[in-house]
């Protein structure tokens, strides 16, 4: 049995968050403490969202807290080598790997690691010491306060998630991979908090994998802020592949300046409940944002993607493509909001959401919301919720392909235009494989991301 020692663990008492601030704030600089306190106050006032909140109307929030989740205020010291229990096995996926264990940066807190050309990564805590001015400039600036109780909760507890800094003109070919691991014999509520800063003209690729190594119930409430300066390029892939006892609430705030380009792929393969809030602010001319998503849900799983693209400046372009396959009693929501502000002329904004329901009981709720205040706008949106095309099924079968195989080919083909946008080749290959297995009804997981009994 591995040895775990836990510094501090308490039942989470939402109403008394501020009581804990003192001990939480201990080594942190003032601006950071202030942000946390502000978030705690705002959380104290508003609490978690409920059914009255338009954005959470379909969200089964009550079921979520039936479990007696534990929250750890501080990182636990683990006396074993993480490499013994986890090694990402994607062939040829050559990345710089960062591990977040139960929401905390796994590795030294004292120093950031330098890769090349001043590209640095490490724990947020270390960044507050080493690059305080960078953290101060961006931390909680894009997530804001008071807009979502989950975000406020995360901000008030933020401590040492991942920090990445890519200075001006640096290009990192090799992607960085953050692996969010859950490894515990308790039912954990984790609060990872990440800050990614891309300065002008830089290029950076990030892959994030959510994985649980233990099968206990868990709830992840993560917030990532990504700042993308002028002319910078950011390629981001999130792979959510857990188990039915894992619930993930994930917020990504992306702030883009002039002529920047961001491409995100949100691939949800497996989890009991998934909520992805994806906020993009295009705050410089000619900025471009491509947001792709794929969710494959079955049993009683729930997938909820909220995308909000704010065209705050003219001449920007955004394109969303989200696709889903819902089997058994799975339910899902896609809500795509596009805001084109009054002076944001020459905007292009596109959105598509296509869904296949494999059973009569599966449900999908697709809600496009367009708010357009400028007049020179090219905008289109389309949502479909349907069954497998029977004509196409017959066509394939008439060529000798069995019904099962034909259905699999159709579903796989349906997912293809999302998967093909993943630019990290080896990762795309693995995701293709996982999707294929998933559609076949197999529990799809990367080999070494298997479950360990604790």
């Amino acid at each position, binding site marked *: 049995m591995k040895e775990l020692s836990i510094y501090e663990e308490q039942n989470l008492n939402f109403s008394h968050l501020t009581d804990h601030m003192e001990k939480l704030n201990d080594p942190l600089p003032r601006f950071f403490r202030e942000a946390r306190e502000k978030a705690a106050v705002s959380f104290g006032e508003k609490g978690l969202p409920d059914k009255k909140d338009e954005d959470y109307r379909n969200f089964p929030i009550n079921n979520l807290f039936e479990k007696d989740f534990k929250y750890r205020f501080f990182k636990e010291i683990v006396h074993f080598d993480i490499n013994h229990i986890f090694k990402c096995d994607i062939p040829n996926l050559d990345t710089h790997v960062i591990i977040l264990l139960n929401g905390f940066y796994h590795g030294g807190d004292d120093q950031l690691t330098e890769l090349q050309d001043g590209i640095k990564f490490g724990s947020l805590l270390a960044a507050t010491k080493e690059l305080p001015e960078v953290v101060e400039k961006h931390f909680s600036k894009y997530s804001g306060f008071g807009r979502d109780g989950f975000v406020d909760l995360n901000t008030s507890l933020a401590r040492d998630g991942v920090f990445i800094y890519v200075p001006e003109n640096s290009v990192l070919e090799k992607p960085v991979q953050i692996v969010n691991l859950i490894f515990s014999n308790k039912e954990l509520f984790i609060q990872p908090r990440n800050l990614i800063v891309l300065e002008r003209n830089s290029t950076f690729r990030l892959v994030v994998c959510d994985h649980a190594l233990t099968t206990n119930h868990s709830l992840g409430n993560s917030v990532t802020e990504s700042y993308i300066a002028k002319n910078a390029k950011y390629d981001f892939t999130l792979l959510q592949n857990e188990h039915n006892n894992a619930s993930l609430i994930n917020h990504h705030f992306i702030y883009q300046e002039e002529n920047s380009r961001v491409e995100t792929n949100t691939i949800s393969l497996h989890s009991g409940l998934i909520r992805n809030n994806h906020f993009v602010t295009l705050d410089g001319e000619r900025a471009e944002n491509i947001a792709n998503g794929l969710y494959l849900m079955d049993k009683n799983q729930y997938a909820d993607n909220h995308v909000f693209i704010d065209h705050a400046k003219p001449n920007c372009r955004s394109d969303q493509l989200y696709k889903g396959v819902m089997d058994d009693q799975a339910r899902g929501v896609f809500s795509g909001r596009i805001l084109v502000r009054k002076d944001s002329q020459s905007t292009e904004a596109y959105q598509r959401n296509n869904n296949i329901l494999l059973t009569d009981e599966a449900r999908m709720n697709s809600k496009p919301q367009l708010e357009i205040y400028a007049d020179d706008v090219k905008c289109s949106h389309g949502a479909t919720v349907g069954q497998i*095309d029977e004509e196409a099924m017959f066509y394939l079968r*008439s060529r*000798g*392909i069995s019904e099962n*195989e034909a259905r699999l*080919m159709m579903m796989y*083909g349906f997912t293809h235009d999302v998967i093909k946008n993943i630019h990290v080749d080896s990762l795309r290959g693995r995701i293709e494989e996982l999707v294929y297995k998933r559609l076949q009804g197999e529990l799809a997981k990367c080999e070494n991301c298997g479950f360990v009994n604790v």
Partner: protein
Amino acid sequence: MLVINNLHAEINGKEILKGISLKVNPGEVHAIMGPNGSGKSTLASVLAGRELVMVTAGEVLWEGKNLLDLSPEERSHEGIFLGFQYPVEIPGVSMVNFMKTAINESRKAKGMEPLSPSDFLKLMREKKNLVEIESGLTSRSVNEGFSGGEKKKNEIFQMAMLEPKLAVLDETDSGLDIDALRVVANGVNKLKTPQNSSIVITHYQRLLDFIIPDFVHVLYKGKIVKSSGKELALELEEKGYDWIKKELEQA
């Protein structure tokens, strides 16, 4: 090899085929002509096993077995091929993967090993040449964005790959330019052996200049109302269907 006896079939409760009988022997080419909506595609659908069409009476025998008991894929494994009047676009499914799966599933049904990747590619190349299909087409998704003519050529390409015993070609000539028509007809003729047969559904004599039928049948309001040799097609081209309708009224 194929015997159809007094076949009745309906779609959504409406009777479309009203007693069709037809016999196709090895090596024969049968042309089926007839006005729009007379039930030609419906007959082809019954042969290929489309579930939408419900057989209410009669029988279809394939090499002595009841064809109607078989699933669409089993019919394909048995050597029946339908060239669709309206080939379906399947985004995201590549032609290569589609054909590879089709070939290997059919081999599996026959207890054969899957083709090796290199043998498969060789077969693709060979058949592409045979039907003069643009190389680019087979690297795309099935029929996606293909022009009308390209879709029809693609049907012949699939036929060439699968080498059926009975090919039912539903208006494979419609929408083809003269050159493509010749290519398609050549493809059909090159694949012809004394053992395999075709049923060619068409509105135009011009295809039958290339593919010489042994029999021409006229399907009208769900029945075969006239059967004759190849000269019937010429007569229809010249005079249309009115004289047949009149003949029927008088009878």
